């Protein structure tokens, strides 16, 4: 099979695996972050150069110094002529295919032969973590051909024919992994750490420069990233602080390895890190098939370490109150989602599995074909992809078009203070901006309610409206430059809905209602005689007044 044919096979598998991304009328993804990712794609062109945005966090604006993916930021800017949902879907489909193809190329580099080398691509790109990323709404995590290419060039650095370009390319691909997501970079760093004994082996007759260049580039990129992360200040996504008992987590992690449980998609999240049983079997049995070579052993070792780390219990960052900036990074990454360290396992096990499959295929090609059947059953039947995938409406309520100026979205506070509800309302308000293009009070990459003007003002508006005393509040909103208040009525109880409508109607006149775009919306005009001179200043004054002694 030619390299092009292999890519086309993976493209076909990616179309099926990520369905309905290739032909979607909505936004692929079941949960709120899919909406937030679409907002990020839409907003990317205007976030340059300092990652600030005057159209969110109104009236003060917002700074997004710690986006999940700088690669998505660049891609969204380059392809800004496409609709955001199209970019989202392209990243899902092409990203999955490109990652699979790169993993297959790595397997070929190590001696695997087509078609058995395809096992590496399926094991890496069609794994449980990939499924989680697509269902939760992080398609940029599946666009990761960088990690396999990084390993390709790192391994070339260990050979006598190594060139300085190999070293530089190792560093560049590590940097691209880092810029795709810090979580992916942790897996990439783990891989490089596992390959270090091969890179520094003094017995090997090869030039030292490529490995030195690789190390310098990787360390440089890592340090610059950490410095930028720390300099960006607070505002990373809030953790829910809910860390279940260690034993309970271990049990759950082990069960999830086998496949997504029945209830995995019931509410708010679809997190699973299932691994392919076929890839696992091939990797575990590889020592019986692959007798010579240090490279596959190193990869298998790294993979197993990655697997062990990925099932380690989640530890609350609050367990390390004195942790510095670096500790904060670890707390918000490794400790929060250890499962994501499993990407290194997916790659290493897939590649070693492809090598083992090649050996089995050479001896008994007809019988070994069952491996493909098993691998595809793992990916599509056990993982239940794409059946588990959902779609969000991509349309927006028409009432947003009734007024001009910045919008204040109003949702009810969740009685239990659920982070999931805050995440939903935040991402929904941000998504709607991709269509109405008006300034909003939401902080779009945050879930920290303490920082969002929307949440703070929403509480005041709801309180005063329910008390039938919203006139002053509307005047306040006018001084802050808001053009309208949009109430998302579906989420309010019948009693509150009626009272809220009556209170706001008394203060602002009758609303414009719409019942399209999947929501029942009431948009109230904030009447102002003139454009307020300094909304940001008025906001600062109001904040000082509400938080002061």
């Amino acid at each position: 099979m030619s390299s092009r044919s292999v890519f086309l096979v993976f493209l076909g598998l990616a179309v099926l695996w990520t369905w309905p991304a290739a032909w979607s009328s909505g936004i692929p993804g079941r949960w709120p972050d899919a909406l937030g990712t679409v907002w990020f794609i839409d907003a990317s062109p205007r976030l340059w150069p300092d990652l600030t945005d005057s159209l969110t966090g109104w009236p003060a604006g917002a700074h997004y110094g710690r986006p999940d993916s700088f690669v998505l930021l660049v891609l969204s800017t380059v392809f800004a002529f496409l609709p955001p949902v199209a970019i989202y879907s392209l990243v899902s489909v092409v990203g999955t295919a490109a990652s699979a193809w790169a993993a297959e190329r790595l397997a070929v580099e190590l001696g695997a032969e087509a078609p058995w080398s395809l096992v590496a691509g399926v094991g890496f790109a069609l794994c449980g973590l990939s499924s989680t990323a697509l269902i939760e709404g992080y398609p940029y995590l599946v666009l990761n051909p960088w990690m396999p290419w990084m390993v390709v060039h790192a391994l070339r650095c260990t050979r006598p024919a190594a060139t300085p370009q190999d070293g530089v390319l190792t560093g560049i691909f590590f940097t691209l992994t880092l810029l795709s997501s810090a979580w992916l970079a942790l897996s990439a760093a783990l891989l490089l750490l596992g390959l270090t004994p091969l890179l520094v082996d003094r017995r090997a007759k090869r030039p030292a420069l490529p490995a030195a260049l690789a190390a310098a580039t990787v360390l440089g990129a890592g340090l610059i990233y950490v410095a930028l992360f720390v300099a960006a200040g607070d505002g990373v996504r809030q953790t829910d602080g809910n860390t279940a008992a260690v034993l309970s987590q271990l049990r759950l992690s082990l069960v999830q390895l086998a496949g997504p449980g029945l209830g995995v998609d019931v509410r708010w999240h679809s997190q699973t890190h299932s691994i392919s049983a076929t890839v696992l079997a091939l990797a575990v049995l590889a020592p019986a098939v692959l007798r010579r070579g240090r490279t596959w052993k190193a990869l298998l070792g790294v993979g197993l370490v990655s697997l062990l780390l990925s099932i380690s219990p989640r530890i609350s960052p609050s367990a390390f109150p004195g942790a510095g900036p670096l500790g904060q990074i670890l707390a918000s990454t490794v400790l929060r989602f250890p499962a994501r360290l499993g990407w290194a396992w997916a790659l290493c096990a897939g590649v070693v599995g492809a090598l083992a499959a090649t050996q089995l295929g050479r001896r008994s090609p007809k019988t070994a074909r069952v491996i493909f059947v098993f691998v595809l059953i793992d990916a599509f039947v056990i993982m239940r992809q794409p059946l588990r995938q959902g779609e969000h409406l991509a349309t927006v309520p028409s009432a947003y078009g009734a007024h001009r100026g910045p919008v204040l979205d109003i949702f009810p506070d969740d009685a239990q203070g659920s982070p999931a509800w805050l995440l939903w309302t935040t991402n929904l308000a941000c998504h709607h901006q991709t269509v109405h293009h008006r300034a909003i009070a939401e902080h779009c990459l945050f879930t920290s309610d303490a920082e969002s003007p929307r949440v703070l003002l929403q509480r005041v508006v709801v309180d005063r409206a329910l008390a039938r005393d919203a006139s002053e509040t509307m005047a306040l909103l006018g001084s802050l430059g808001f053009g309208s208040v949009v109430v998302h009525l579906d989420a309010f109880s019948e009693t509150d809905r009626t009272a809220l409508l009556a209170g706001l109607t008394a203060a602002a006149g009758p609303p414009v209602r719409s019942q399209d775009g999947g929501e029942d919306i009431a948009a109230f005009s904030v009447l102002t005689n003139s454009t307020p001179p300094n909304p940001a200043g008025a906001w600062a004054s109001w904040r000082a007044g509400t938080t002061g002694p």
Partner: protein
Amino acid sequence: MQVELAAEALPSTAQPTVHTTWLGAQKTVVLRDDGRLPDRRAGDGTWTAQLTGEEVRTLSMQLQLDEVVLWAGTETLPMGAQTLRFAHDVRGPRAWRSAVALPVPAMEVAEASSVAAMLGWAGLVMISMMGLIGRRGRR
């Protein structure tokens, strides 16, 4: 959208209902276990109701058994036909959102069976691979 409540122990006179506001319109629908559509089989302990309308993103709803509120909350709904499943827990009394419409004890068995099936599959694959390797060894 379909709502299913697994509740085996309910008397035939019981009347589970679902109350919601769908794009501004209040709806109350009775769940039935009489074998008439949308219910699949009479007396199987799965009570079913159907709600129809334009696509909605969120749905605040309340599931009641006569006057007792079994479940109340807001669901976010993906596009397309959806089924919200609940399991009646007589110890509550209340209902749990669930992936399958089975009573709570049976649901636990179903969950365990699903894990066992996946582990069984992994075992089958492992044995098959060992067989492939053994075949190679014999040759």
